């Protein structure tokens, strides 16, 4: 191993050494996954049938030992900083004779570059193949602007311009790629700083909840840019001849070089090529925020309720009535929504995560109010019956930690379809290892939901009658008239999922 020492300082100033020791400990803790699951998960993946979320979960981690919301969510950072300061002081006492840390500084830079690159590439692909912000469902298109959370409004504002989402993804992706190479790393860091700095602010402003994780990248980018700032200052502000500090390691040993190139190749192959491929699969067959199974095609659309009977009693149209349905939609996927003038508990989450069952994919209800009820359905198209389950669930049953503690006996009657039938709803190409396994575990975790069983009858979907028992166990009879509504908002020109 040799180093290009031409301009590297052989003697660091004392404050530089102390600052470096603290920074070194701080950033090493920040970049090392502390959860054992991060290490064991790679053994649970089906590497022959990868899901985008497998690599995403490798790429996405941050210090989360406390999960305390304190200090705006930066609690862990503060703890790590305290540890780093204590460690740095002790280190300074032990290693006081040391003149410089050029080699260690080099390695720290490499670690941070790769951590930031892999993390941002993981983030980027869900935009490059736009599934992070799915185009609004028909239910959301017919929900008033004021009946959405700020977070939802921001996510939707990107969702309506899928090509812009692709552009944003490409910006993040290029930052990540540039970080993988020594020479272009600073350029990558500048792009990362600008793009993620904006996202931090967006998350604070819109209450998006991802401010800490996006700050994580801003911090790394700032670290990488920091050493360039004095040079930029000398060259442009002081207008003086500037010689860059250049410290690179060059391996002489063959095996070290081979190791280096192999590792780099693996990172690039896995996080660029394999990731692109599995994300494309997700985009085409299984967009992770939308249910993947096709809805009954005859029913899809937007409907007005022209007749509504409950327990055989006719209810006239009125916006104030708390029982009568209004504004019914059948989505491209297996969802029925309707509006009611009745307060209901709301899902205020981002509607993200990695649910594998369609019923748990909640982007269409998360952050949506205005009395809209959203039901997942399983259709018996032979007998024309819809088995409906409320997509809203009170507690966040998706969190694996929580449900392990509160594992209850399974409620089997909640599932109309068998496991096999549920697998069959998904396009075989989108039925990855993770999805197979996920459907199974999430079925076991199901809890009580509101349910309806409705018979439907229609010839061509223009007029639909629904008859059956609603979630309050009343018998209902509804006549729906399709409205071929032309929205001011143009339809998406880049659609995820396979619903035709």
């Amino acid at each position: 191993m040799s180093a290009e020492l031409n301009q590297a300082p052989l003697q660091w100033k004392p404050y530089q050494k102390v600052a470096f020791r603290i920074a070194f400990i701080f950033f090493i803790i920040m970049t090392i996954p502390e959860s054992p699951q991060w290490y064991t998960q790679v053994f649970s993946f089906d590497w022959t049938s990868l899901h985008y979320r497998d690599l995403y979960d490798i790429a996405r981690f941050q210090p989360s030992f406390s999960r305390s919301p304190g200090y705006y969510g930066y609690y862990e950072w503060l703890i790590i900083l305290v540890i780093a300061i204590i460690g740095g002081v002790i280190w300074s006492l032990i290693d006081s004779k040391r003149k410089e840390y050029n080699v260690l500084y080099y390695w720290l830079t490499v670690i941070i570059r790769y951590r930031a690159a892999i993390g941002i590439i993981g983030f980027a692909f869900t935009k490059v193949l736009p599934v992070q912000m799915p185009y609004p469902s028909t239910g959301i298109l017919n929900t008033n602007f004021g009946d959405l959370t700020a977070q939802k409004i921001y996510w939707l504002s990107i969702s309506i311009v899928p090509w812009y989402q692709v552009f944003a993804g490409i910006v993040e992706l290029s930052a990540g790629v540039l970080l993988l190479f020594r020479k272009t790393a600073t350029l990558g860091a500048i792009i990362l700083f600008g793009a993620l700095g904006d996202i931090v602010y967006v998350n604070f402003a819109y209450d998006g909840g991802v401010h800490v994780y996006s700050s994580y990248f801003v911090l790394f980018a700032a670290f990488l840019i920091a050493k360039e700032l004095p040079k930029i200052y000398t060259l442009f502000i002081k207008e003086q001849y500037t010689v860059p500090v250049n410290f690179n390691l060059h391996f002489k040993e063959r095996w070290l070089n081979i190791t280096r190139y192999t590792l780099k190749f693996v990172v690039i192959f896995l996080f660029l090529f394999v990731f692109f491929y599995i994300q494309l699969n997700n985009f085409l067959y299984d967009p992770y925020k939308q249910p993947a199974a096709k809805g009954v095609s005859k029913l899809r659309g937007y409907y007005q309720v022209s007749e509504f009977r409950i327990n055989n009693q006719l209810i006239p149209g009125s916006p104030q009535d708390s029982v009568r349905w209004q504004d019914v939609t059948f989505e491209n996927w297996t969802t029925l929504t309707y509006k009611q003038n009745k307060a209901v508990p709301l899902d205020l989450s981002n509607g993200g995560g990695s649910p594998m069952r369609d019923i748990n994919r909640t982007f269409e209800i998360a952050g949506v109010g205005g009395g809209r009820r959203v039901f997942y359905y399983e259709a018996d198209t032979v007998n024309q019956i819809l088995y409906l389950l409320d997509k809203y669930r009170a507690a966040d049953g998706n969190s694996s930690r929580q449900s392990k503690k509160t594992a209850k006996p399974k409620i089997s009657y909640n599932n109309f379809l068998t496991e096999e039938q549920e697998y069959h709803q998904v396009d075989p190409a989108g039925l990855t290892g993770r999805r197979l396994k996920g459907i199974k575990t999430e079925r076991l975790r199901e809890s009580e939901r509101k349910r309806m069983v409705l018979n439907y009858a229609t010839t061509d979907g223009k007029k639909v009658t629904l008859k059956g028992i609603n979630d309050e166990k009343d018998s209902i009879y509804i006549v729906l008239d399709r409205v071929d509504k032309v929205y001011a908002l143009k339809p998406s020109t880049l659609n995820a999922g396979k619903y035709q």
Partner: protein
Amino acid sequence: MQTLTQDSSNWKGSQIIGFRLAFVYFFLQAFPLDWKYYKHLASINWLHLNFRDLFNISKYTPQFISGQYQESDWGLATFADWGLVFIIAIAGTILWTLIDKKTRNYDKLYYWLRVLIRYRLAIAVIGYGFLKLFAIQAPYPSLSSLNTPYGDFSSWKLFSLSLGIVPGYQSFLGAVELLAGLLLLNRRTTVIGATIIIFFTGNVFMSNLAYEGGETVYSFYLVTLALFLVLYDLERIINLIILHKPAKPTVHPINLKKQEQTGRIVLKSIFIFVFVLLNGFSVYKSSLNGGYHFSHQPGLKSLQGLYTVTDFKFNGQTLPYSLTDPIRWQNVVFEKWASLSIKVNKNYQLINHPVESIPDKEADGTFEQDGTVGRQYYAYKADTSNQNLFIKPIATNEKGSNLHYSLQADSTVLLTGVIDGNQIEARLQKNPKKYLLKATSSGRRGSLKL
């Protein structure tokens, strides 16, 4: 461009020709030669200069072909105008090269061209920066907008509304834009300011493309100016940051005499006074009055709010509540200012006006109904002694109508009158609606029932 950035006295032939082309092109793009521009300047009341005048001044681009110029507003160029400018630049370069065979370098002229571009660009981004800094470019959504379905907006309107709900973020964006503009005012920080603009305004350009905004060409124009400025330092940047090689600083080609130095400082001070201080103060004052998108006429306090239309008579005939009837009113919104909107299921013409323009005080803006359908918008004048509302559809030349309003004992409002020759009678019941957007404005923790 290698020796361009060095203090050599001899440029290569290709550099000389390249510079001539760039000079003619950018000079024409940035320096106002259009006589209409000076007419425009003359029409301004310079003693009562406000940000609207300055904003319009700052928007100058040559419009030989598109000719969108209006008395009230400097219009926008199209790419066809660029094409013409480019053709002229080529012709100019040929002519220049034929005439001038002696000049060895353009160090000084290049410097002055950069000064022109720096200030041209600075004016533009500072103008926009202030509108965002004081959060008036995208106002908080009107009550009518809050009660309009998501799909009933065009994408650029949704962009504006989405930015409108977060004034703090808008201010942040404005601060970045303003900072970039101010950095251009100093030669040594120009490269930093121009780099920020490439990213920032580059993103504005992409947003205009995506959301079908009207300022695609203009934002790209600003990006090209910023690119031209960065080009000067490009070699230095690449050496220093990418190749990690030593880099020479620029050599300042101009030595001003003492008098000239004073003149420079005076001109720069005037520039800063007008385009930064005066402009900033004027925008700030406007923000205190609620900006320029909505009417400044206050509405009737007693009426403000959302109402459900419980009973509706059309020429004496009662129409039942319906979401599909093209005549039957569904709900009515009275804004804080003097306008109201009615939700009726009519066929609406979508009017898009996706360009940032600041209307005259006298003329009413049309922002409320721009880029949205599903509601009929009216401006109104109230006569409180007779309980009359004179209503007039926004942005039309249609004649107004008179409506009589009366507050009933059961706290409903009865509106009666004749609109388009039809006798209308509507009973409005206040809807004490709570908005999820507002209910979660301080966070999404805990559970919420709405």
